[in-house]
């Protein structure tokens, strides 16, 4: 792992007596694409605002490259922000918008012109220098907002749900654009979103947050395949979260049926939660199944069929390219390595809350 760039040291913040962040610790490395992911109100935007200098933590420190910048105002920080609603200066042309930061730093005219040209090229909006922001589409305005931030050569770029206002197609395009820009510029990105797909697509590291706590930090693969608790499992993609009992190492009792698994170290006869992704549930004829059930719902989703199977008193969510009609008796099989075992939440804070997204 490369050099440490930013360290948040037990940051707490509350507004009007309501705790938003509780002793949050987070380390971000140089040249990393970090995504803060969570439902609204989880504290991700507050974390970003503390990084940007727009909010001061009640306790804790922000360490940037070894220096304490907790009380440094936003205009003195070596980082830039791309705001949620672009926040372009509507009375200025595109070129003036991009030049804003450079003019304040009193750069030469030649330098500024070169930078404007370079930045517009980078965001694929060559020749837009003299347009006004209002005459651009949402996606173009967002690119300008990015250009305006990166011309200042920040060491860290903060992005606050920058694609939230764009339509699906444009959003996907911009995701690739952002990855490309990040690789070209070699800047560290901290990206805030509530969109799990966006997080999985772009990030090197995902920080899943809920109610002011970090739930899990890890690579997209680790977050998706090995969620540490029910909240993460539920928030990232669809999943079946089933209460179960860990009989012994590599053997779990799910709804009265014993399944082989690969996890160890949970102890004997311990209550746990298991996560099984819908695409990992295999439907077979009843005789071949480890459990038997009946298909209760069937929806065609394009890439696959989404089915619900009632088995062992639990509605299993199943994704499959093969179709099983409603009312059909089926068998369920799950490969041992597709069963993810999680400890039951120990405190209320860790507990998965109802997600309204």
């Amino acid at each position, binding site marked *: 792992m490369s050099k440490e760039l930013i360290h948040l040291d037990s940051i707490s913040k509350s507004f009007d007596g309501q705790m938003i962040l509780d002793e949050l610790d987070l380390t971000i490395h140089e040249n990393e694409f970090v995504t803060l992911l969570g439902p609204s109100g989880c504290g991700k935007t507050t974390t970003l605002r503390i990084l*940007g*200098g*727009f909010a001061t933590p009640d306790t804790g420190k922000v360490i940037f490259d070894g220096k304490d910048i907790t009380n440094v*105002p*936003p*205009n*003195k920080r070596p980082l*830039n*922000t791309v*705001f*949620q*609603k672009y*926040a*372009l*200066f*509507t*009375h200025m042309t595109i070129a003036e918008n991009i030049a*804003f*930061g450079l003019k*304040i*730093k009193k750069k030469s005219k030649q330098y500024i012109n070169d930078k404007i040209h370079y930045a517009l090229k980078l965001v694929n909006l060559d020749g837009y220098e003299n347009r006004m922001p209002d005459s651009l589409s949402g996606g173009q305005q967002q690119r300008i*907002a990015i250009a*305006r*931030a990166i011309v*200042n050569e920040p060491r860290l770029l903060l992005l606050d749900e920058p694609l939230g206002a764009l339509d699906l197609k444009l959003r996907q395009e911009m995701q690739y654009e952002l990855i490309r820009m990040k690789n070209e510029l070699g800047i560290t990105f901290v990206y805030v979103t509530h969109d799990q797909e966006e997080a999985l697509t772009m990030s090197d590291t995902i920080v899943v947050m809920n109610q002011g706590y970090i739930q899990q930090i890890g690579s997209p693969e680790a977050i998706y395949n090995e969620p540490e608790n029910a909240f993460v499992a539920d928030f990232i993609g669809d999943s079946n979260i089933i209460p179960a009992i860990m009989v012994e190492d590599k053997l779990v009792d799910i709804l009265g049926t014993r399944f082989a698994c690969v996890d160890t170290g949970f102890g004997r006869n311990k209550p746990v939660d298991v996560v099984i992704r819908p695409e990992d549930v295999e439907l077979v004829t009843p005789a071949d199944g480890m459990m038997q059930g009946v298909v209760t719902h069937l929806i065609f989703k394009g890439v696959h069929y989404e089915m619900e199977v009632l088995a062992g008193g639990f509605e299993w969510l199943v994704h499959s390219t093969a179709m099983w009609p409603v009312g059909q008796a089926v068998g369920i099989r799950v490969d041992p390595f597709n069963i993810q075992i999680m400890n039951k939440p120990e405190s209320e804070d860790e507990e998965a809350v109802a997600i309204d997204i």
Partner: protein
Amino acid sequence: MKTAAKKIYIAFIILFLYAPIGTLMVLSFNASKTRAKWGGFTLKWYIDLFHNEEILRALLNTLLIAFFSALAATIIGTIASVAMNGMKRRTKSIMMGITNIPMLNAEIVTGISLMLLYISFGMKFGIGTILLSHITFNIPYVILSVMPRMKQFNPSTYEAALDLGASHTTAFFKIVLPDLFPGILSGFLMAFTMSLDDFIITHFTKGVGVDTLSTKIYTEVKKGIKPEMYALSTLIFVTVLILLILVNRSPDKKKS
């Protein structure tokens, strides 16, 4: 048929509204000194008007007071709007109420209370007291036209300016102020107009020998109406009309 009726109705409304002013305007070009008969077209009264030193001094006073009171009120009102925008919802609506009251208050009450205030402070009546009074009654109009603009302002543009390295002062002058400008301009023009045609408050707060156009006309009329006064009133009406058109158009211009 229906549209014809509508048009006639509108025509009557306009006729009744503007007939008196129209009469005045026509008479200001009447060569005959009596109001009863038309003695041919003349610009004599306008020429006389501009040779009357007392009236010219009153005009100069009016314009100076209008300009400086509008300017001061615009600055104070804009700063007040920025501050009020940062307040909590409840405090803000209380403040808005307080600033709105002077606009609804009867002018004669405002005029007399300002006069009493100046007397109790032992102030000398003159241009200074008129100016102070005009600034006072102009501030609410500025706030009223800046506040809606302020509400539309996206606070993250201010944060974006800070983020790009601007100090609070730079961010305010380069980002916030240009965005509020249409509101500020229409506030200024509104204040200018209000000051220009104020009579009652000026009447109570001016000193002896100092006159604005409206108080001048009032004194002149007491001596008997001279046709120059028609000319003067016409000019005031036209000026106010033009200013009002400007006030109404200025926010739209920015949008297009």
